[in-house]
């Protein structure tokens, strides 16, 4: 069985597009035939689960039984890739919990592949979150994500200051999520389907849908740009999967 891979997607504040990034990751792995499971920590109702109900479970990361559900099964279940959408503001506490249960040591020892997608907020407080996260990143892959999906204006602070925080984490990599047309984004939200299904004009049960061709086109174009970022960082190799044949968007 492949080495288990865990991807944590987190942010220090809400509304920065953390769950959107999680959704693009799940679509990316789906298109690349990488079996994936997901945990949605927005207990009790969940947000990620609305879009990927078949592969997502809602959990409470602060509860031991749910921690066991996630981490005790890493080596025993397939799929081998786990995406955890961490509730806003809980990234540092979640990483601390992972440290306490020995997960980070396992990552450092190469038993598990561990990656963090840190979705950056636009305020200077986000830089402090980078500094906090740095304490947990030994042996892990760290991706700092600038999410422009809703036209956030970032980084009006001094670039040197930003760079000084960014470089505290060894091998940190920047990713950019480009802007998506607002109406297109809204329609996907209303449809409650993965981005991939919206582009394919399908409903939640793969039934034929009637979404706007224009909006589907915008989502397709945007998703291709997002995935080119994931390709750039060789995400499938990171999680230990080789691409099986042509990706579904390349067919």
């Amino acid at each position, binding site marked *: 069985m492949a080495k288990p891979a865990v991807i944590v997607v987190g942010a220090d504040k809400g509304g920065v597009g953390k769950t959107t990034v999680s959704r693009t990751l799940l679509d990316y792995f789906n298109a690349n035939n990488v079996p994936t499971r997901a945990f949605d920590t927005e207990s009790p109702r969940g947000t990620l689960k609305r879009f990927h109900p078949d592969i997502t479970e809602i959990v409470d990361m602060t509860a031991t039984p749910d921690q066991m559900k996630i981490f005790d099964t890493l080596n025993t279940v397939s799929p081998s890739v786990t995406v955890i959408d961490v509730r806003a503001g809980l990234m540092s506490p979640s990483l601390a919990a992972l440290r306490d249960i020995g997960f980070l040591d396992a990552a450092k020892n190469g038993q598990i592949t561990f990656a963090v997608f840190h979705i950056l907020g636009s305020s200077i407080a986000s830089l402090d979150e980078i500094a906090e996260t740095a304490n947990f990143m030994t042996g892990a892959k760290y991706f700092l994500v600038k999410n422009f999906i809703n036209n956030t204006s970032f980084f009006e602070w001094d670039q040197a200051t930003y760079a000084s925080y960014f470089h505290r984490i060894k091998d940190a990599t920047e990713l950019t999520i480009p802007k998506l047309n607002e*109406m297109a984004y809204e329609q996907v939200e209303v449809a409650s389907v993965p981005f991939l299904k919206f582009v394919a004009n399908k409903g939640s049960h793969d039934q034929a849908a009637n979404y*706007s*061709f224009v909006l589907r086109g915008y989502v397709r174009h945007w998703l291709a740009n997002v995935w080119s970022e994931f390709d750039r960082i060789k995400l499938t190799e990171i999680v230990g999967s080789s691409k099986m044949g042509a990706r579904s968007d390349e067919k």
Partner: protein
Amino acid sequence: MTATPVYIVCSPRPQAGKTLVARLLSEFLLLKDGTVVAFDINLKEPSLLDYLPGITETAEIDDTYGKMQLMDRVILDDGIAKVLDLGFHAFDEFFKMSDEIGFLKEAARRNIAPIVLFLASPDRVSARGHELLRQHIPPSQLIVVDNEYVVRGELPLAWARGRLLSIGALPTFLKTYIDRQNFSFTDYLRQEKDSSTELHEWIRKSYLSFRDLDQHLVLLRS
């Protein structure tokens, strides 16, 4: 099954003859097929809607809603030819949008045949516009229209190498005559008893050009 054609009449310059060509083409298609839908994407130029109100709808692509209203109609394989009179102000945005949403690919999937009729004019803006189209539109779907009244024999040689459609220049008095809002090319052909008049010949020649274009496209798609 024959693809549904979508003719995009365009130029990045005003006063290039777009609406004239759109009118001629719409009336030709109406005569040939009995039905056509035209979309007027113009601001202040002479408007297709004024000439053919019975078959023309206004459209705008300034916002997403406008784009949806237009393109979600244009992409339908309903067997009814579409003519888009694309105002010069909307040239860049329309083709940027088309490229981004994958219009040509989707059209191919849905049995739609987009044809771009590019009204040439001898200036740099027009040259840049043509170059932009050349990079994104397959040669078989990009037709340069030599409107002799505008180009006056100065069509760049490079443009003449691709598929070309010529619209002859009319004397000014006849141009004024056809510019009247109640003038119909088909009605003139039907009502004018003397088929040797200059205008009669001009309309027939224009219609024949469109018929040749239509047949060429049918051959390409078969």
